[in-house]
């Protein structure tokens, strides 16, 4: 017996034993999707937030439009547009050599989640940077720091602490949102669960999946709280 069949065996659930391995690999896929998209999204979001605040006017307008649009439409719709809609322009993607990317549901989901979470994270970071008092800029400029040095050494470290909590929320939101990847034929945790239900008609498998998601989000929430406590220990907030 494989290790992933043991939980089902131990609690005496046949369906969980039969589909335990699929759900374990589904959980891994969920992890990959979320970790990669949130990480890529974060890198994008830093650039977007800075350009949104200090960039040229056209960039500010464009980024504002981008964040408003992607925060104002459902992720499911965005995913279908990318997965089904982009596939329509197959010849174009083949011409520019990107067909391998938009052909795979995994990359489509990763791409959609990344641009979606980048929009949310950019707004979080913008809000955090904007709430740093003006005096911090002026002070470091008066000390002779370059604008970039000011941003990197003075503003961003302070803004990150403010952004920490909403970023943690965004991570949890993405874990939950990643369940819709199952609708574009991906077998993430939700996809494996749907398969198990379709074959066994045993509703309890959904409850086990809910429990796994719950434990996952709860662990992340608690770990994030710890991280926040540790990073802000010099501020004596609590």
């Amino acid at each position, binding site marked *: 017996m494989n290790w992933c069949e043991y939980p089902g065996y131990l609690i005496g659930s046949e369906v969980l034993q039969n589909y335990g391995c699929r759900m374990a690999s589904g959980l891994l896929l969920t992890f990959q999707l979320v970790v990669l998209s949130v990480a890529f999204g974060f890198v994008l979001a830093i650039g977007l937030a800075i350009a949104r605040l200090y960039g040229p006017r056209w960039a500010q307008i464009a980024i504002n439009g981008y964040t408003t*649009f992607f925060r104002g439409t*459902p992720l*499911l719709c965005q995913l279908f*547009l990318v997965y*089904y809609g982009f596939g329509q322009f197959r010849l174009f993607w083949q011409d520019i050599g990107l067909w391998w990317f938009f052909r795979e549901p995994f990359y489509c989901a990763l791409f959609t989640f990344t641009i979606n979470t980048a929009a949310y994270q950019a707004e979080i970071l913008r809000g955090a940077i904007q709430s740093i008092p003006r005096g911090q800029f002026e002070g470091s400029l008066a000390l002779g720091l370059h604008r970039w040095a000011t941003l990197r050494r003075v503003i961003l470290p302070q803004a990150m602490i403010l952004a920490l909590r909403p970023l943690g929320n965004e991570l949890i939101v993405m*874990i939950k949102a990643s369940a819709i990847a199952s609708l574009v034929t991906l077998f993430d945790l939700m996809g494996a669960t749907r398969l198990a239900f379709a074959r066994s008609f045993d509703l309890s498998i*959904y409850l086990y999946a809910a429990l796994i998601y719950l434990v996952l989000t709860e662990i992340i929430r608690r770990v994030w709280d710890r991280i926040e406590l540790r990073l802000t220990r010099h501020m004596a907030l609590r």
Partner: protein
Amino acid sequence: MFDKLALLGFGPGGWGWALLQGAANTISVALATLPFGLALGLIIALWKRSDSVLLRSLATIYTTVFRGVPELLTLYIIYFGIQVLVQKVWTGFSIPPFVAGMVALGMVLAAFSSEVWVGALNSIQKGQREAASALGLSKAQAFRLVVFPQLIRVALPGLGNNWMVLLKETSLISVITLQDIMFIATRANVVTKEPFLFFGTAMMLYFFFSLVSAWGIGKLEQRTNRGFAAFGGATR
């Protein structure tokens, strides 16, 4: 290019009416969920602040569960769960997707909005309740006439966010065959093989609703803040 736009029209072979019907279904399920979710959220918020340990822990468990489980999964559990349970007494029963979606999203909305309500309840000073009781109002009267009107102003920005999230989450109900915007777009895609056109249109419809909601919430906030703007406090 333009010949494809006829697919969105209202003539024969056009999906215009179907999409409008889908939009109406999206809006009606969101509007039907809102009062149910907000009322349940307020009850849970009151439980969270109650003196009884039992109610407090029940409320905490409720919010932890519904905030930690994906909405899609909640939707499936409610949809299939209710179906299976009722079919034990009444075979042949099938729950309308509208109701299942309303219940599932309403319960999730309740979990999220209860946090907003708790924050707003905490912002109302104890003296308000004490003064109300000194004036001879009962606890229920004090809540209805004194606390609640003040609550709305503080809670509105958070509840507005909840509404925007709800509006987007309704797209998930299409997977249990509610004929909303997403469902119609998916079906049109199957028939016409024009996914980009139809999912793009669906996206524009959702975006339009989001913009209108943001505008409406802004107006509401202005209205609820009209007595406070003069102090130049947290409002603009």
